[in-house]
Structures are given as C-alpha cells and as structure tokens.
C-alpha cells in the first residue's frame, strides 16, 4: 500500500545541503505493523511526516494506495486524510476547547458523515475504549494516558486504512504505554489496520511485525520481528 522509492530530503542552509533522509526505499503492505527506530535526529519524524504527506520529499517517488503522491493536489490530500490516514501524536494534540466526544467526532464532521451515524460511531468507540463516563470532559481534565487514548480513538473513528504514530507513548509511563501498544496490536490483528509508529523502545517495537532502523537518514536494517507474544 505504501511504496517509497529513493526518497531524499535535505534542507539547504546558506548553500550547504544538510541531508535528513538519503535513498530511502521501502515498501509497506496492507496490514503490516511497522516500527521506525533510531537515535534522536536520525530523521524518523521526517520520514513519518513524508508518509503522512505533511512534508514533501526533495526527491524520490511516493505511492500511496497506488496513487502518486508527489503530484497530488490539496483536495485529494484532504480526501486521503479524511478516509485513509489517522494520525497519533506524541503530544496528543487534542483540541482543548472540545470535549472528549467532540474531539472524537470532529473527523466525522469533516467527512460529512450523517448525524445519527456520527452518534453511533462515537458511542461505539467510546464504549470500546471504556471512556463513556469521560465523554463530556475536556482534555485538560484527563491523564496523559487517557488523552492518548482519545487521540487514538479520534484517529480510528474515521476507519482509516493506516495509522501514523510519532512516539505515541513518548510522554507516558510504561504501564500506560503497554496498554496503548496492546491496543495497536489488537487493531492491527483484528481489524487489519496498517500501523506505522516511531518509537525508541525495543519493547514497543516488539509489538509490531517489522522494524526499520534509521541512522543518519539511511535505512540501516529492515527486520521482521519474531512473534514471541
């Protein structure tokens, strides 16, 4: 579903090019659970942003579900956001002025889902994440782990084909982190949602099926995880 060919990314600063990504070529299939690992500054976030079309590569080819992304217009991209891509952020990035339920409902509004359908889907998700009691609270009334659950719920509610998560557990304690990872794994296995996450933790990476090791903008290793669990 995702094809990267020879992706390059650099920033030119006073004529000096500083490369962030070099010759990145990878292919990710529907239903995979990929973890991107590497030291700080290796270009992990940049790669994920390119995958999420938040940034454009300087060179290279990127196909998402058979479509060439480099020639995609704004409209089409927003369509992809609405229907196929869900983002999960390290800092949760919930909208502070909206309640839990409204935050989750927001993508459906943009997707122009009917009111009744929205209600039932939001109710479903809340139920599944055990957050019914919290649906009218505002983000600042929740713990970090709970906020991240809402973040994931928001990414899921529009039934995307892929979830992109940049250090989703970076701000969480390990117990909460494991809960999130369990959830990802379940989503991946039971609903076949493709998951691509950036993580520093070997443990978290262990939940996935494949690890891309990034070092100085180059994919050094591409390993398949032994399913131990």
């Amino acid at each position: 579903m995702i094809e990267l060919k020879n992706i390059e990314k650099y920033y030119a600063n006073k004529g000096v090019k500083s490369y962030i990504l070099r010759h990145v070529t990878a292919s990710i299939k529907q239903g995979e659970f990929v973890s991107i690992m590497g030291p700080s500054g290796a270009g992990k976030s940049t790669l994920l942003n390119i995958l999420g079309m938040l940034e454009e590569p300087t060179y290279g080819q990127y196909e998402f579900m058979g479509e060439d992304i480099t020639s995609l217009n704004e409209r089409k991209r927003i369509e992809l956001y609405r229907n196929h891509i869900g983002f999960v952020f390290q800092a949760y990035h919930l909208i502070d002025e909206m309640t839990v339920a409204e935050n989750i409902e927001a993508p459906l509004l943009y997707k122009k889902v009917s009111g009744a359908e929205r209600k039932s889907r939001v109710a479903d998700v809340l139920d599944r994440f055990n957050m019914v009691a919290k649906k009218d609270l505002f983000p600042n009334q929740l713990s970090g782990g709970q906020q991240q659950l809402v973040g994931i719920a928001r990414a899921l509610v529009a039934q995307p084909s892929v979830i992109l998560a940049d250090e989703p557990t970076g701000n969480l304690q390990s117990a909460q982190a494991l809960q999130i990872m369990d959830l990802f794994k379940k989503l991946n296995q039971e609903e076949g949602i493709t998951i691509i996450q950036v993580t520093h933790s070997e443990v978290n990476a262990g939940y996935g099926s494949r690890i891309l090791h990034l070092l100085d903008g180059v994919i050094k290793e591409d390993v398949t995880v032994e399913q131990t669990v």
Partner: protein
Amino acid sequence: MFRLNLKIALRNLWKNKSFTLINIGGLSIGLASCMILLLYVKYEWGYDKQFTNYKNTYIIYTNHDTGTDKTSYAWTPALLAPELKAKIPGVKYASHSSYPEAHLIGNGENSFKTNAVFADNDFLKMLDYKFLQGNPDQALQKVNTVILTATLAKRLFGNEDPINRSVKLDNQDVLKVEAVIADLPKNSSIQFEYLLPWVLFENKNPWMKDAGWQAMICLTMLQLDDEKTFGAASQLIKSIYERSDPKSGNEALLHPLSKWHLYADFQNGKSVGGKISQVKTFFLLAFCILLIACVNFMNLSTAKSEKRAKEVGVRKVIGSTRKMLIAQFIVESFLLTILGLILAFILIEASIPYFNQLLNTDLIIDYTDWTSWTALMVLTLFTGLIAGSYPAFFLSSFEPVKVLKGFGKAGGSSLPVRKILVVFQFVFAACLIICTTVIYQQINYIKDKPIGYNKDNLMEINLVGALQGEGKFKLLKEQLLKTGSVTSVASFSRSINRMGQRAFNISWPGKPKNGDILFNYRFAGYDFIKTIDAGIIMGRDFSANFNDEKNVLLNQTAVKVMGLKHPVGSMIKWGDGNVTIVGVVKDFVIESPFEKTLPMIIGHNDNNSAVAVLRLSPDQNLSNSIAQIDAVVNGINPGFPVERKFVNDNFEEKFNNEKQLGIVANWFGGFAIFISCLGLLGLALYMAEQRKKEISIRKVLGASNINILSLLNKDFIKLVAIANLIAFPAAYVIVSKWLSNYDFRVPITLIPFCAALLISLVIASLTVSIQSVKVAKSNPVDALKYE
C-alpha cells in the same frame, strides 16, 4: 458543523475572558462611536429636507460688491418677494419673513417669551409644516391671527382646544389662534414656536413701508415650478436689484434651501462650503474609529495565534480544508461583532441624551426605519469581515507540520503586520490629540483676544412692554443708579452680541462712486461707551450735557475705510440726513470674534431701544444687586418677567460651533486613544507570551525587573514615537487648513505636537506596563519548565 463552530467559538471566548472583554469592549466602543457620528451626520445632512418641495426651494442671498470683493448675506428688502412673484416667470411662490425673534405671548394669565416668525401664506406653501388643526391655505392672511406649535398650544391652553382662542402678543396685540402645527424638527433652520402674519409685522413697524430697496430687513424665500426653470430664473433674478435700484451694486443669488445650513459660507459671492466640511470630517472620523476598532480586533485575534496554531494543525490533519477553517474564524469574529453590537446599542442608548444635550441636537435611533437597519447590517457585515478576515486568513495558513513538530513559531510571524497596525492606530490617535488641542487653543486665543470692551459684570435688560414707553427709560436709569448696584446705564438698539442692523446708506466727503460700504449701525443712549467700558480714541461719548440728536460715533475701522483725516467734527450723510461725528471708538466685537470687525456707526437715540446695558457695581453682592434690579424693573413694567442676561453668557454662545467641534474631537479622540490602547495591550500580551522564555533566561542570568520592564517597553515606545512622527505633518496640514477659515487664528506652535507625543507615550507605556510588569515579576521556572 456550524453549530459546533459556534459552540467552540463561545467556549473559546469564555476561556480567554480578558481577551474577549478587551475585544468586545473595543469593538463596541468603536461601533457605538461610529453609529453616533453617523447619526449626527444623518441629522445634519437632513437639515431642511423635511419639506416636500425642498429641492425647488431657494433662499435669496444678497451679494454686495464692496469694491474689493463681495459679501453675501440672506437679508433682503421686503419689496423683493412681491417683485419676484410678479416679474419672474417660473416662480411659484415667494415669501418674505422675519428672522426668528423672541416675543411675549400670553393667554391672559401666563406669558412666555419665545421665538416667533412673521411670515406670509407663501411661506407655508413652501415649508409645508404639518398642520394638526386649521387650514394652511388661508393661514397668515388676516392681521390678527397666529399659528402655534403643538408645544406652545399646550403650554398656553393645556388640553383645551386652542382654535379661535385669543392670545396677546407683547401685551399689546390681541390675536386669534387659527391653526396648530406639529413641533418643528430641530434640524430645520428656521426655528420658532409661533407664526405671525407679515401684515402684523408691517403694522408694528410702520417705517418699513417706505424702507425701500436699501433696507435689508427680511428673509426672502422662493420656490420654482421645477428644476428646469432654474437657469433662466436665476439669471433674471441676479439683476433684479439693478433694475429696481440701479446704484446699489447688489446682486441677488439663489441658494438652495437644502444647502442653507451646511453651505453657509460665501466668498466673493459664491458658496464655498461651511459646516459641510465639519460634517464630512465627522463622517470620516466615524469610519476611522471603526477601522481602529477593527485593527484592534485583528491584533488581538492574531495575538492569540500561538494558542490557535495547534488547533489549526490538528484540524488540518483530521481533514479540515482551509476554507472550513476560515469559515470557523469568521464565525468567531461575527459572534464577537454581534456581541459588540449589542453592547454598542446599550452604550448608544445610554449616552445619546448626553450627546444631544452637548451638541444641542435631536439624535435618535429610529428602530422603525428600515434604512437604519440596513445601515446597521452593512456596518456589522463590514466590521465582521474587516475585523475577521485578516485573523482568519492568517491563522488558517498555518502548516500543520510546523505546528505539530513543535517548532514553536507557527507560520510566518505576523508581528510586522501587527506593528504596522499599531502604528496606524497611533497615527490616528496622535492626529486627533493635535487637532483637539489646536481647537481649544484657537477658542482660548479668540476668547483672550481683547474684544474692545469689558464684558464682565455687564448685564442687559430687554426693554419690553412698559419699558418701551416715552420717558420710561430715563426713569429706569435714574432708579437703577439710585440703588447703588449699578454704576452706569445706557440704552442700545440691539443686544450687544446680536448680529444684524447693517446698511450701506452712508456717504462722506470723498466717498468714491460705487464705493458703498456695508456698515453695522446701532443706536445708543448717553454714557454707552462708558458703560461698556470701550476706549474712546478721539472725541467723546454721547452725553446728557450735549444735544447729541444729530451726532454719531464711529469705530476705528469705519474711520479707516472712510479715509477720514480729521473725523471728529466732520459731517457725513446717513440716509437722507446729515450727522456729525463726535467721537471715535476703539473697535469692539459685536459680531463674530473670529472675524474682522465691520465698520460701525452709532447714532444717538434714548427711546425705542431694545436693551438697557447695565454696569454692575463690583462692590455689591451679586444676588443682592440682581434682586434690586429686578425690583426696579418690575416696578416700572409689572406685566412682564424681567429679561436680563449677562453679556458674558451671550458672548460664550459665539463659540458654540467651535466648542461643539472641540467636544466631538475630544470625546471621539478619547475613544480612539482608548481603543488604540486596548490594541497595544493586545500586542503587549502577545509579545510577552512570545518572549516568555527569553525573559526567563535573562532573569536566571541576573536581569532585574526594571531591566526586563525597559526591555519590553522599549519596542512599544518606538512604535508610538514613529506613529507620532507620521502624524505630525498630517496633523499640521489638517490644522492649518481648519485655521485658515478664521480671520484671527492662533499661531501653530509646538505645544500640540508635544502634547500628542507626551500623552500617547505616557498612555502607551502605562498600558504596556500593565502586562510587562506581570511578565517581569513572574517566576522564570514556570516558563522554562515546559520547554
């Protein structure tokens, strides 16, 4: 979607209460100021336009050639109206009428002194006042009739039917009420409470019969059949004086009724504007203030951008288009605008009585008038769009990756734009401060300018009723002087500060042909110059020791324009008689203190005067003196209330126009400054937020609160100073243009400019300090912890 946007907008507003308050506050003051000014402009613009055919109605002006240029005034001979109607084709109606003057009207028990106009039936044809009772077609034809306004009818007769009841005019003429008209709108140039027939005017002033073409004694108004006849008619009318009175050198000019109020200034026989420029200024001011409020709004909304950036980023990655975001921000700005509008209405309704009193107007919000609603809608839309568009486009342009990556500064910084906006606001504010200062300087300058006589402790008593009788003035004078409250008394033919009584009919040895000069003429009794304390340059005052019946006084200007080498003792001609100059008086101001004094001739007459001028004794207690004076006047003239006025108060009235301008400039300048300061506060909030980290680090490194404060305030001071520099030349141009309207004007000094600089700097630094003190005093850990 819309509902959610609205909900979120409301939550946002509630969460940032201080921002919301500043925003709505600024917006409502801006909107209220704008609407009050627009109401005022509408009011002034509507002057004399209440009448059905106002478009074809004209006021006749007399253009008089003085040799060097032409002077114009709406005074005409009484013979003009009939002549126009008889001889000029296309003239439908022509009326002669007196200028409003207070007369005593009574119902037998109570009497009131209020404004009356003598007019003929054609007057009512042109100015179709609303008749509540009676027939406009037959009104003002019989000599002993009167038309009352509703208020006066009520005052005289309560709820009883006033028609055919009798009233007494000046305790003399018995008149029958033949009609009642609705009260006049305040924005009508001719203001009266009752109308009297012209024939009665002629009866009361028998001399008018042979006054001829030289006596400019009334207002002439005419109506044409339609616009097409204007060209031909005005051409014919122009030379009507020449045909009737070849040597006068006068021309008649048609001035549209609708322009009478706003275009009253004439130069060289042509209308050159007048109050219209003030109205235009106010119109511009209305929008400038609104614009300032909008700028404020932009400033404050974009200042919140840091907070909103994340929301924008998130919304974009969950599928929002830019358009949707713009819509959301516009919804927010309209919400604020509407809240501001509601508050503005409350402000207007609360303040309008005050402004009406201040400006002597009759402004109201007419809730039944669809045009005001349309104007309101347009205003709201305009404000919402102007105020909301920049923040909407700015905020919605944030790129999610930059925001979400936590790179802090989202998008291009909006700071330069905001600085420009603040500079713009303060340019405007500084201009207003300068203009206001100059207006007040000018008023004070004119007030302090010597007026040629001592107006303090000078009182006037109207000589009405029995006081007019033969020998009564002499009696009054004797009795007043006996009380000791008064040191000197003289009669005068007109209240000292009143205009009018002008004539050309003065000739002197060596007067050039066609050299008619417009003179102010008055009649004064003995001791007049002594009473008002004006200076005698040559000769003497009128005095009981001489027979002054055929003697006159001239003022300095008169002597100068006549070119008399040895004025005292010279014989000149006034009308048909010869008079001798016995004294030359220093110029004293009886008309506008802003303009050059006209030549004046003062004849002697101790009877038939309009007022007694009293010099109060400075040694006496004022209320005692007044009581004694009242007693004396009442003793001689029991039927009338004592009409006394201090000359000082009358003199103050000459400044009404300028004072009005000053008040408006002051108030709305104050509002503009206030709103600008709110904007500055917003900018300070933003800057403080942006520099929180920098400040914390500086503090950790050892900077004191004072260091931080000066660091934060420096930038703003610079902005305000730049604004002042831009404002100075602009204000200079405006101010010199305004001053050029006056013969006497205060020189433009540095004071107003320094005042503007100082006031704006002080206010601005106070405003900014509210915020920066908070930041400077904050604990650095709070800011650093979250990085």
